[in-house]
């Protein structure tokens, strides 16, 4: 407690200095947080389709190797999979890249998702309206990101400049490869595919991937199906997320940038901690002489470091939120609480350990004898 009180007293007595230190750390943390938010936005913008589904195992043909867009499985496959005891239910989705315009506006790139009316193949939630019903032609549920968020239920959507559908519902966070999605019933999807892919015939069944809800651990189910079916590539939903083009590279690259930035921030915090100890060396030595244990002094250094870091986190989080708000829509920054909490939590622990580890060797070697003036001979 004494160490914490010393730290608090110092911060109260020198608020300007504490603010300056926190702002300095906040600049580095701003970099870490904004890159993390950008990485998160990129990955989520590419994989919303998979997160929107209530499926935990994804099946593609072997050649597609878990990539939804390349898979050419037909619905018949799902019948065989449904017979398995480790599969609760199954559905089928098909993906077609195309374009869409709302109310005669400019066309934008979208991914049309055909889905079977089975639980794993349908978006879990709609934020408004509903999904197209089985056998209901000319209707679609669309991603709220379409048309810059200006789309509403009742709008008319022109797909590939050829087919018009009515928007009957809105889904959120369901994009694919940074493009909004349009969810269609089998008939509309097959017609659209025929229009977009001139060499494709009208498909009586959805062509794409099969998605499953398993009754056992998804990884075990994926392994078991793979072992029994050479022609299939089966993975968990997380595996399918990682297989989306670009996602792994983005995660690795931006993850490395975040890690390096955090390491720099932690190093900076440790350096500041060391400088503060060196600057107060005479005082700390005198406190050791009058009976303050080194751990009490370490506690004061650590608490001060934690408080400065928390201040820096607050400043950098506010700055990141502002940055994400003013950034153009083409910059996919997402400042989610979980991102702030994880970057903040990890960096706080790392910074505390860094400050402690850097300050302890100095504090533990302070010689209380130095508090008396005379040098030995």
């Amino acid at each position, binding site marked *: 407690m004494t160490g914490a*009180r010393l730290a608090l*007293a*110092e911060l109260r007595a020198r608020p300007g200095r504490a603010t300056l230190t926190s702002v300095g750390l906040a600049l580095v943390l701003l970099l870490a947080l904004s890159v993390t938010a950008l990485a998160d936005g990129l990955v989520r913008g590419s994989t919303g389709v998979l997160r929107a589904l209530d499926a935990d195992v994804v099946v593609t043909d072997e050649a597609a190797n878990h990539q939804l867009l390349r898979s050419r499985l037909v619905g018949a496959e799902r019948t065989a999979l449904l017979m398995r005891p480790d599969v609760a239910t199954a559905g089928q989705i098909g993906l077609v890249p195309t374009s869409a315009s709302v109310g005669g506006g400019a066309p934008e790139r979208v991914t049309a998702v055909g889905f079977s009316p089975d639980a794993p193949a349908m978006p879990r939630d709609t934020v408004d309206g509903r999904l197209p019903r089985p056998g209901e032609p000319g209707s679609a549920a669309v991603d709220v990101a379409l048309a810059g968020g200006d789309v509403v239920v009742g709008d008319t959507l022109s797909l590939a400049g050829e087919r018009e559908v009515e928007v009957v519902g809105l889904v959120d966070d369901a994009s694919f490869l940074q493009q909004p999605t349009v969810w269609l019933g089998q008939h509309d999807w097959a017609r659209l595919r025929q229009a977009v892919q001139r060499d494709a015939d009208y498909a009586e069944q959805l062509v794409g991937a099969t998605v499953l809800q398993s009754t056992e651990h998804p990884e075990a189910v994926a392994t078991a199906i793979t072992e029994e079916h050479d022609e299939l590539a089966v993975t968990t939903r997380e595996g399918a997320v990682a297989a989306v083009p670009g996602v792994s590279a983005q995660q690795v690259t931006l993850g490395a940038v975040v890690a390096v930035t955090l390491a720099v921030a932690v190093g900076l915090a440790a350096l500041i901690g060391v400088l503060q100890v060196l600057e107060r060396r005479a005082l700390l030595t*005198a406190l050791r002489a009058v*009976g303050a244990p080194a751990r009490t002094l370490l506690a004061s250094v650590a608490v001060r470091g934690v408080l400065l870091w928390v201040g820096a986190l607050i400043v950098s989080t506010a700055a990141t939120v502002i940055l994400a708000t003013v950034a153009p829509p083409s910059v996919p920054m997402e400042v989610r609480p979980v991102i702030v909490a994880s970057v903040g939590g990890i960096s706080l622990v790392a910074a505390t350990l860094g400050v402690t580890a850097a300050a302890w060797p100095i504090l533990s070697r302070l010689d209380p*004898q130095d*508090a*008396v003036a005379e040098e*030995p*001979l």
Partner: protein
Amino acid sequence: MSETGVPGDLVIRADRVTKVYEDGERQVTAVDGVDLSVHAGELVALVGPSGSGKSTLLALLGALTVPTRGAVRLGDWDLGTLSEASRTRLRARHIGFVFQAANLVPYLTARDNVALAGELVGASRRASRREAEGLLVEMGLADRLGHLPGALSGGERQRVALARALLVGPRLLLADEPTASLDSDRAEQVMGLLAGAARAEGRAGVVVTHDPAVAAWADRVLWLHDSRLVVPDGGEERTVGEFSRG
């Protein structure tokens, strides 16, 4: 001496204590075979030229360092055998220090600087602050309780440092050039308080000084020269009478 002139209980004793430092390949003897006893109610001054070893002897008496040879005993404790942690606890509970520079925490008020000594031995903050206020009032600092050290004069800072040293009721009070940075009036005031505190409540005091006016406050004056206690002819220590009080 105590008020009756009869030596009180032995508080601290050094037996043939020697301190040798390593200086590269050279060995430097800072204190060489010193015998010393200080009794309750007694204030002893250590004087001598720079480098004579008086601060090192003070550090040995204050458990700030351990002797290379010989023994220092405070009550029943042989300071040379205690661990670093035990010596730290012992200093916090039984030894009060007043340094040349007051060495107060610059961001704590006078009251909280003094109370810190109580908190270091586990006393509650409230009780420590109450105790600190009483001591500071005794030191004539009733109107400076809430001031930061930067707002105090040198003499006031030393009085706060003295209050900090006395808060836990130490058995031994050690002072290192406590008036070196004060003018004579303030030095007189601080030494009056320090000498009174050193002699009170079965306590003993040792003060290191260059200043004859400070040494004049002591009951005994011990001279160090070349790391040894200089004992005048006949084995008698030099007395306070050999110094003027300025």
